[in-house]
């Protein structure tokens, strides 16, 4: 096989669950992967450029809508950055409320992920139940913030709303229920035979590899890389409400499930702590409309890993440049490099393994031999190929 072969993994353009559609292309020399690239851009809207034409307040809502799943994370990262730029200190109560919403968002996001992952594995019952229980936290978020997704909880300089006794009580009740259910899900993902055969030992990533590739979030932590911005560089209220780092050593899919579910318990604990000890005080500080020329970084731990913002102001009421780095992009970058120099047969495992979301990974591969007829490879066939290649010891 001397010709260069190209694989491309088309990701269903219509995709009810989530995530931007992406498109992988692998070039292969014989058995060896020589290059890998990814095509993004189906959901590329040009947000970064548009921030330069909008004022600081408008950008808050634009950036919040980079992604509806971690919307609060993006809004929070932006607010923290802008407040740093302007040198504004926000009241402690506002900080606590921001942290509260962030943790509630983590709960919703992890439950969502559990459901989607189960759906991808063909376990619709688990999907239905985890989403049923997720409604509990969605209701609470709606009661607290006024919207189920894209909460718009933040304003520059603080938050929009307060928590009172009654709401706090409702949240605590909701948590009690969720905690019970979470124990059950932990049990399911760690013991269900049918489910484990899709996750145990699949997509293993060693600690060293994860470390070097700059993988972030639960994916990194499942490979025993202790990386969590909430602990490393506490922001908002996290210096008072300190999460414990949840790690795992095996680095396979099962570990990633376990890490995420165990993080839920941490979030429940933090939420309870916040509600018990929330400081009194104002909700907002005054923000200037124009911000002097300056630059700042802002890092926040999203449910899927570190979000990184670079912000630069030039003295006007609009930013000069805002750069957004999302965790998914970061983990994607590591996939691409992980496969170079690997055997073709390893690709599926690596893809499934590194990416925190599987929606598109379990799809298929088309091979184009030197531009001639397009031969179609299924995921299964590729996997089968891998099994055969390694002597069928599977």
């Amino acid at each position, binding site marked *: 096989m001397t010709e260069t072969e190209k694989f491309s993994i088309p990701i*269903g353009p219509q995709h009810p669950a989530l995530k931007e559609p992406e498109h992988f292309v692998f070039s292969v020399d014989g058995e060896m992967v020589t290059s890998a690239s990814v095509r993004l851009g189906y959901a590329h809207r040009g947000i970064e450029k548009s921030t330069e034409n909008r004022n600081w307040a408008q950008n808050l809502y634009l950036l919040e809508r980079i992604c509806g799943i971690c919307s609060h994370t993006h809004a929070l990262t932006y607010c923290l950055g802008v407040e740093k730029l302007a040198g504004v200190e926000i009241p402690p109560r506002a900080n606590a409320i921001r942290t509260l919403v962030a943790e509630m968002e983590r709960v919703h996001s992890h439950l969502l992920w559990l459901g989607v992952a*189960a*759906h*991808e*594995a*063909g*376990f*619709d*019952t*688990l999907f*239905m*139940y985890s989403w*049923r229980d997720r409604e509990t936290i969605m209701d609470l978020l709606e009661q607290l913030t006024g919207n189920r997704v894209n909460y718009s909880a933040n304003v520059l300089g603080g938050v929009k709303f307060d928590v009172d006794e009654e709401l706090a009580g409702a949240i605590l009740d909701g948590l009690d229920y969720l905690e019970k259910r979470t124990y059950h899900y932990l049990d399911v993902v760690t013991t*269900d035979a*049918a*489910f484990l*055969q*899709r996750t145990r030992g699949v997509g293993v990533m060693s600690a060293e590899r994860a470390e070097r590739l700059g993988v972030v979030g639960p994916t990194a932590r499942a490979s025993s890389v202790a990386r969590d911005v909430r602990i490393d560089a506490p922001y908002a209220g996290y210096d008072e409400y300190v999460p414990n780092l949840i790690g795992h050593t095996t680095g396979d899919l099962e570990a990633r499930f376990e890490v995420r579910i165990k993080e839920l318990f941490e979030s429940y604990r933090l939420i309870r702590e916040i509600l018990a000890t929330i400081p009194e005080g104002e909700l907002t500080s005054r923000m200037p409309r124009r911000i002097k020329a300056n630059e700042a970084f802002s890092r926040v731990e999203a449910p899927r890993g570190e979000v990184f913002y670079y912000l630069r102001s030039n003295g006007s009421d609009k930013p000069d440049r805002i750069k957004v780095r999302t965790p998914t992009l970061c983990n994607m970058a590591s996939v691409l490099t992980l496969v170079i120099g690997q055997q073709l047969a390893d690709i599926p495992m690596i893809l499934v393994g590194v990416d925190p979301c599987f*929606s598109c990974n*379990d*799809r*298929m591969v*088309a091979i184009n031999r030197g531009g001639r007829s397009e031969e*179609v490879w*299924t*995921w*299964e066939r590729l*996997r*089968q190929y891998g*099994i055969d290649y390694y002597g069928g010891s599977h």
Partner: protein
Amino acid sequence: MIELAALLFFPGGLFVLLNGMAYEWVDRKLVARFQNRVGPRWFQPLADNVKLLVNEEVIPENVDARLFITLPVVALAGVLTAALYVPIAGFDPAFSFEGDLIVTIYMLSLLTMATGLAGANTRDRFSLIGATRTLTQLFSYEAPFLLAFLAPAVVAGSWQISEINDYAGDHLWLILTQPIGAIVALLGLMGKLEIPPFDAPEAETEIVAGALTEYSGRGLALFHLGRNVELVAGITLLAAFYLGGISNPIEYVLKTLAVLFVLATVQTAVARLRIDQTVGVWWRYGVLLVLLQWLALIGAEVIF
């Protein structure tokens, strides 16, 4: 004249179709209830099928149009024929002869074959993969499935469905004496119907809708109906053989619904198997178990 009516309306044709839709509803409703939701209304399958029938049927380019149109008809005709040999609604089968069991089982496979061919014919990549998976799966469960249905035939000493039915009615329920066969037959039926965990051939998350991705309108409706009929015929056979025979409508309803209930439960409680795992399960355990049971049966014959 009466025979023609039997063929077209009762217990053949129309009745089986309606029965099939009703059972599809029961199945979907049960799954919905198991998942703590309300689920579809009672006329849902009817509405679905009528809608598909009246909708436009798109015939994609570069397919063999004649095959594209005839395959669904063949599929439905096949299973309808199979249904004629099965004691639907507790009445004696419309037709019956020595050896009709084998014919029935093969007629039931016709649907799967047609699905596979339909997928291969459309040349869409998802369809192709779906077709490959469908056929792979067919070849893996066919043998154990057949063996599981032949075991009752052997003890009854006949290859005729009505006689095995009578035998099962007179003796201890075969599910007690041949539990392994019963389980394998049930799982085989699930494989045939491509319901979870054996739904890899149409895994929506992976290959959209498998072999039938390109079908719309009438063709899709016929495949759907075919599936429904297969469901009825399959569980009727299962109930007749393993649950002590079916001799009247009441028994029919109770026993087939019992099988359906088990079917729905299993399907809700498990995750999908990958296609290689499906094949593995069948060849490694399915065949082995059935053979074991055969050995036990032969042993029992010899001893008593």
